């Protein structure tokens, strides 16, 4: 039997069969690879959290075990600094939380034990020039100064805005206070060289990455501010111990 390849019936059936076959194949691939992808994403998050506390995996360490050995405890707090029961810190999506009003947010805290004492790591999330930027900030146990920072981005310009993920940028945050001399929350400014503000904590912006740098500054302020009560509690606890 000779099939007419140009007939409408043939064309429609051909398209339908092709789409079903391809759809089925893609579903299979997705199902097969999904577990590995989820693990990668979780490991990547763990790596970022540890990077904020300046802990980097060496070649023979797996992220999973390194994370287990350092992050002993994680919990969520609200804007009053009280622990929220039943929320898993690792599963909270900070990008969604920053969209809510400050007093409705669930704020994750990761308690990290390092060689230099206990650090409290909190996530931050905001917008850069082309897309989302995010990061993790490790606070010293006194809740006043930053111990380390990690920043990530989705698609900032390579060599310009993308430089925020480099230690050359994030390393500047070490030791910066986030509260002013009168105890108010002031965050850390990200400013161009030559425009350093007097009396406030700042780091140098990435040259050529102005909008991304401003995004980092805004992200730090809006994401860290609701933690103020929690950080104040830390401060009180640490001064009680002394």
């Amino acid at each position, binding site marked *: 039997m000779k099939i007419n*390849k*140009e007939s409408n019936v*043939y*064309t429609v059936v*051909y*398209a339908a069969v*092709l*789409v079903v076959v*391809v759809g089925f*194949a*893609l579903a299979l*691939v*997705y199902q097969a*690879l999904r577990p*590995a*992808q989820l693990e*990668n*994403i979780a*490991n*990547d998050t763990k790596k970022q959290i540890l990077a904020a506390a300046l802990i980097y995996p060496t070649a023979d360490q797996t992220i999973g075990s390194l994370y287990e050995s350092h992050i002993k405890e994680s919990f969520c707090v609200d804007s009053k600094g009280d622990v929220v029961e039943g929320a898993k810190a690792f599963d909270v999506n900070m990008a969604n939380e920053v969209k809510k009003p400050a007093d409705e947010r669930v704020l994750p805290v990761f308690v990290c034990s390092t060689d230099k004492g206990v650090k409290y790591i909190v996530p931050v999330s905001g917008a850069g020039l082309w897309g989302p930027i995010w990061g993790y900030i490790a606070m010293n146990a006194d809740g006043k100064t930053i111990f380390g920072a990690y920043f990530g981005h*989705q*698609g900032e*310009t*390579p*060599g*310009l805005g993308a430089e925020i993920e480099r230690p050359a940028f994030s390393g500047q945050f070490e030791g910066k206070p986030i509260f002013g001399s009168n105890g108010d929350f002031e965050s850390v400014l990200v400013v161009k060289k030559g425009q350093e503000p007097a009396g406030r904590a700042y780091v140098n912006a990435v040259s*050529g990455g102005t909008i991304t740098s401003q995004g980092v500054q805004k992200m730090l302020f809006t994401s860290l501010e609701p933690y103020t009560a929690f950080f104040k509690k830390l401060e009180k606890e640490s001064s009680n111990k002394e």
Partner: protein
Amino acid sequence: MIMGNIRKRLEPLINPLSNDNPVIVQILGICSALAVTAKLQPAVVMTISVLAVLALSNVIISLMRNTIPTSIRIIVQLVVVAALVVVVDQVLKAWNYEVSKQLSVFIGLIITNCIIMGRLEAFALNNTPFDSFLDGVGNALGYGIILVIVAFFRELFGSGTLWGFQVIPQALYDMGYQNNGMMILPPMALITVACIIWFHNRKAK
């Protein structure tokens, strides 16, 4: 005589490398050549991804060539290419998450790479699967060579590194040498490609 035959068989593989290069002779696939060539590593991963997609889609379309209705042939090609690209994207996410993060949307954009549609339409629809395979590999390599050359110069002068390792000695920076920020921006990729075309044309004359 035999040598001549082999040469003839391999023509689809060898021609696109220089004489009929998709990027610098046919001026196809320029957009992705700009996007992924700021660093060497993404350029190489992109080349491998395009190689996989182009070789496989060429073979698949060539196998299907006698059954495809002419009126929807472009759609059929697109479906095959899109499916392969999604597979490549998923595999990268599962096995090399770091690099897939770097390449982000550009893997998805392989679908719109003119080289791929061009080869399917111009070659795979009229040739045997084996020849189509050679043609796919040849064109992907021809594309890759240009990508790697452009990325080499852009990373070297733009970031002072190659494959992420610093190659320009610190001493030079201390003497006042600075990375050329312009090299990282897309326009310099165009200019670098243009220089390659220039040299290539000179040689061909």
